[in-house]
């Protein structure tokens, strides 16, 4: 089903935010919409977004490639993205990230066997005063989890894996 069929009101609202002769501006919000169902942008959606934005499919694909929050491949249903940038690392984020990976039995960047959770290390998320912290990205969007402990992550993962 196309984006227009699935989310007609949202597509219209997105296009209305930009000047009628600059539809290309809608590419980023439309890609978030395209990613909603499966947490990655399927090839068919690239073509449809290109038509909606009046640009070439390769231009849409290059946007997916450039910006880190879009994906062209499927990974875990939930991406746990742990900040390991300098300020968080000064407060133990690297050790925290290693402990989370060990708990899940995956390498950094890996996905659990049930396909539910991928763990990734990411750059500063503007929450450095509340390290260790991570965000969870899935099709529905992004949520922040701050002042975390291994225990709180375990509880969260258990919840995500039963969903």
């Amino acid at each position, binding site marked *: 089903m196309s984006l227009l069929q699935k989310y007609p009101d949202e597509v219209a609202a997105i296009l209305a935010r930009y000047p009628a002769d600059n539809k290309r501006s809608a590419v980023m919000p439309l890609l978030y919409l395209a990613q909603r169902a499966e947490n990655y942008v399927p090839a068919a959606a690239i073509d449809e977004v290109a038509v909606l934005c009046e640009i070439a499919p390769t231009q849409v694909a290059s946007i997916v490639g450039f910006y880190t929050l879009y994906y062209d491949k499927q990974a875990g249903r939930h991406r746990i993205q742990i900040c390991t940038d300098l300020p968080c690392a000064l407060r133990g984020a690297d050790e925290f990230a290693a402990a989370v990976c060990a708990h899940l039995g995956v390498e950094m960047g890996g996905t659990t066997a049930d396909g539910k959770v991928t763990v990734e290390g990411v*750059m500063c998320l503007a*929450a*450095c005063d509340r390290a260790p912290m991570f965000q969870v990205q899935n099709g529905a969007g992004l949520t922040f989890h701050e002042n975390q402990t291994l225990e709180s992550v375990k509880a969260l993962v258990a919840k995500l894996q039963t969903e």
Partner: protein
Amino acid sequence: MIEHVVLRHRLPGLENINQLAAYQASGGFDAYRTVVTSMTPQAVIDLIKASGLRGRGGAGFPTGVKWSFLSNRFPRYVVANSDESEPGTFKDREIMERNPFQFLEGLMIASYAAQASTAYNYLRGEFWELAARLDAQIAELHAAGLLGKNVLGTQYSLAVHNHLGAGAYICGEESALLESIEGKLGQPRLKPPFPADRGLYGQPTVVNNTETLANIPPIVARGAQWYRTLGTESSPGTKVMCLSGHVANAGNYEVPFGITFRELIYGLAGGIRGGRALKAILPSGASAPILAATDKVLDTRLTYEDVAALGSQLGSASIILMDETVDMSWVAMKTTHFFKHESCGKCTPCREGTYWMTHILDRVQAGGVQAADLALLSDVTQQIGGKCLCPLGDFATSAVVSSLKLFPADYEQHVAVAAAVPAKPAARAKVAQPVS
């Protein structure tokens, strides 16, 4: 008692100003009403000029002066820069979460001054939850007649839209940000032309940081003279300082420009965790040179000029503190990985140089490094410095160059150990564990 201009939600009785009714009850939108119903755009620009307000996004450029550069073409746009991606920065987020209407009011006043009828707020993609709340708050302003056609019964019309980025630090650079709103790769443009002449869709555009905009309603409400009673002559007002790393109480501190590092760190933020000694300070996130925590540095006033005189930058005041246990070659490795990841790839020195620097610095950490490698590292920084299209290239070298200069022993320890026991990784100071 420190004056709260931007973080007003921290004042007793104002905790709920993230709700429109409470914000209005505290005088919110009076400034906007005054501006739209009784001031000319030029008068607003003159007022902001007189206040001496300087941009809080990093460069400290005078805001009113920037507005006066707009070319005489229409339509014009105003864009709020809420990309906030510098490591160690988390102030715009607190402003938008806890005092969102003051930020929006500032954006709306700026739009009136620029005679723009459309404004965009560009948020980093990670601020997803925040953007959803701001969408709802903007809808409330429409319902209240403060946004939309014929605002408050005047001829003025204004729409505000949020635009979410998708994880690219470079989109904080204003021209890359505009490219991104246009639906393109976030890569900086050659300047000139500047956004005031050719910005969004080629039209005259004002780009201001979130915190800059949040300063505007109080300036309109209380006057330029009042504003100048805060801070210093050349850096008026207050600044939200983001403290992170090995500080006892990490967080945002709104203080008048001109208090010293020492007053901020030891007076307000509880000093260094565990009572350890402070070794070094990154005053502007990953982007500006490291400062050794000497008495001279600690007694330096926090203003754009004073920190620049030390050979670094105040920037957006993302102050990262590092105690005596930290190996500064490890810090350089961390910042360099950040910039390698965030280089937009448009110019070769930045794209390739950050790649080579991470390679060498990773080897330093692994202990397999020789003196010649450090010379090569230094050489690579010179191949990048001053040779790039946008400031990110220079940013990428600053922690490397300054740590090599100020803390050579932190590098040499890896060389020495590597030479003596080639098979074993060098011992290095371990990064402190989090306190629970």
